[in-house]
């Protein structure tokens, strides 16, 4: 007998077609001190010019500026697949003389996106939920310092349970190879010491081929990524044109793996782990937020900090998690409950009517 061909091996193709139709949306946040090459890197990564209309304020204006959150969206299409990319920028971070609590607006923003999603999920119309949650945060570390600065540590500890963090060393052409290695090691040690959870790349399956495994291991070794961005193409006479920065002593090539980790970052962010970042955001980080939110709702009035989700590990000087005011959430839930009840009643009525009409029909039949 021939083996029967059922045909569900074609499932991935169906998924693929569905997602192609739907398109992807991805929200990327970039954070770090100003002047570390964040905008240039985003432009290089996605080959767009997102920051054309940006006005950089002078130092005296920055004295009194507070941190703002800016969102810029762009639709990128490649190979028939549409990606709706949103880049969230944090100008003003680390700028002022006194940067205490300057990360609070960022934390609030991330949580607002979670709240929005929570509300949408609990709502009635769940077909078209817009996912504006931040899927990934590229945090830029200065190559001029000696590792993480106190401000870096404070920011990372405030957001590491709420967003996938990928640490990145900006303007890496300031460093010689040995210095890069030393700085990376120092940052890794500091992250471990401060117990900051950065995005963990999933281990590749054992059945992947050697090449992939090697690439994967290489990529993991090179975190934090030392990147250089450039949107200019340098044409050195003789060699092919490359994207890079031209200095008097040589030209740095952005896409040369010996010069910087740009290729690794791009591969990781866009080619291999885009979906995983979204999944981790949804399954781990969002769920953690949701659990903590609902748990504190379940015991109204008892704002017990220890009852928070075991995932959150905030420092002693933590700020109370800004949540929807209890009264409002409760009201919402009550409203929704009422709606459900009404709908159930309607259903029962309809069922009763149907039964009635059935029995009537039977009666008339028998008659």
């Amino acid at each position: 007998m021939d083996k029967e061909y059922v045909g569900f091996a074609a499932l991935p193709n169906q998924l693929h077609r569905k997602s192609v139709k739907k398109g992807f949306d991805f929200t990327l946040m970039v954070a770090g001190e100003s002047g570390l090459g964040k905008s240039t890197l985003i432009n290089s990564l996605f080959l767009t010019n997102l920051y054309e209309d940006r006005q950089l304020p002078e130092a005296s204006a920055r004295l009194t500026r507070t941190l703002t959150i800016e969102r810029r969206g762009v639709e990128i299409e490649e190979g028939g697949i549409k990606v709706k990319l949103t880049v969230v920028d944090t100008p003003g971070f680390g700028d002022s003389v006194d940067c205490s609590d300057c990360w609070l607006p960022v934390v609030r923003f991330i949580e607002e996106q979670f709240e929005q999603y929570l509300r949408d999920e609990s709502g009635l119309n769940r077909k078209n939920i817009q996912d504006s949650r931040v899927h990934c945060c590229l945090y830029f570390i200065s190559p001029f310092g000696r590792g993480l600065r106190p401000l870096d540590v404070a920011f990372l500890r405030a957001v590491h349970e709420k967003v996938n963090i990928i640490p990145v060393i900006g303007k890496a052409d300031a460093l010689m190879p040995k210095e890069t290695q030393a700085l990376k090691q120092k940052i890794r040690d500091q992250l471990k010491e401060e117990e900051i959870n950065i995005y963990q790349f999933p281990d590749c399956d054992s059945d992947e081929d050697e090449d992939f495994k090697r690439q994967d291991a290489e990529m993991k070794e090179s975190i934090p990524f030392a990147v250089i961005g450039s949107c200019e193409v340098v044409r050195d006479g003789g060699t092919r044109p490359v994207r890079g920065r031209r200095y008097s002593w040589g030209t740095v090539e952005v896409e040369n793996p010996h010069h910087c980790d740009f290729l690794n970052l791009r591969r990781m962010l866009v080619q291999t782990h885009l979906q995983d970042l979204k999944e981790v955001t949804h399954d781990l980080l969002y769920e953690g937020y949701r659990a903590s939110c609902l748990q504190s709702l379940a015991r109204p009035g008892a704002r017990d900090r220890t009852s928070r989700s075991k995932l959150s590990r905030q420092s002693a000087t933590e700020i109370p998690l800004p949540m929807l005011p209890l009264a409002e959430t409760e009201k919402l839930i009550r409203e929704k409950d009422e709606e459900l009840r009404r709908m159930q009643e309607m259903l029962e009525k309809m069922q009763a009517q149907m039964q009635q009409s059935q029995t009537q029909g039977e009666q008339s039949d028998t008659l």
Partner: protein
Amino acid sequence: MGKLRLRQIPDQLKVIELIIQKRGPESGPLTQGSAYARARAEARRARATSPPPRDSRAHRRSLLPRSPAPRPRPSLEGLPEARTDAAMSELVPEPRPKPAVPMKPVSINSNLLGYIGIDTIIEQMRKKTMKTGFDFNIMVVGQSGLGKSTLVNTLFKSQVSRKASSWNREEKIPKTVEIKAIGHVIEEGGVKMKLTVIDTPGFGDQINNENCWEPIEKYINEQYEKFLKEEVNIARKKRIPDTRVHCCLYFISPTGHSLRPLDLEFMKHLSKVVNIIPVIAKADTMTLEEKSEFKQRVRKELEVNGIEFYPQKEFDEDLEDKTENDKIRQESMPFAVVGSDKEYQVNGKRVLGRKTPWGIIEVENLNHCEFALLRDFVIRTHLQDLKEVTHNIHYETYRAKRLNDNGGLPPGEGLLGTVLPPVPATPCPTAE
């Protein structure tokens, strides 16, 4: 007169020079013979009275006016034919009758009749300085990791600053700004310099950097106070030890955008107290266009905020200074530097630099960075001026303020009840 000897060739050349000079200003024809004899006599006289100039520069900076009233030249008639050197020497100080025809200015290297020798004071000062040596105190301010210690080591070509760059060591950022002064004695060409490098670890590294310049301001004022106390003493030392900060190198982070608010605040507060030289650190991350744009923006921002960095416009003494300093102020500063203490082989030479996969950055190559300009500026041309501005202006401002505050009396002990006349409130050039 004597026979011509090879040894006297330099004298011969001098003689010929003198003849040519004479031919110039004087209109009448000179017979070969007598002019030649006269010239030779003068040359001999000159040799007898003054030492040969060792440094032509000394003459350029001589205390005699550049275009002096013409030195009394021997007129055609009045000069007796001299025969012996002894007779020559007593002729020297006698003023000669002015010739009828106006003279051209004397050439700088000539040792004609009438030379007094006051320009040797330069030589005397030089000898004295070599014996006593001099102090220089330089402070470096900036966020950690901007290469301050490396730059100072590169500037003075020795390990004068303790580097905290060895990654293996545990380097905790201090919670408040600390002031660490380390002194070294450097010697070059017989000249001794007592160099003190004042480091300020912890500046700008905290989350809240409010007022982090206060410890620095306090330190600078303390040094002025120390000096003032010594000055005011009745029995004061011959040479007061000078711990005042002569120069403050402020390191700007090469963001490429503009100055950071902290940079502005620091420079606003301290430019009136000490000479600040802003420096763009780790400038190997900027391309040429980015560098010049950034420098322009920084200069504009400093100007808009009324921050005067060294060399300050108001202290230019004369036109020459002004043009020289203007050029530096408006084109080169702030200097974009790269520091290094490692040597690499480039084109067969060993140079200080940084080796990257895309090329070697040479520290002393003007096409790569402006380290050489900074070094020449601070050490080779403006070192003395830095000290003078500190002493004559910043210190005097502090002193006047202190004496005013004290009711016109000098502060502290050592007065034994005597009251010195109150110091009049001099209008300070750097008015608050």
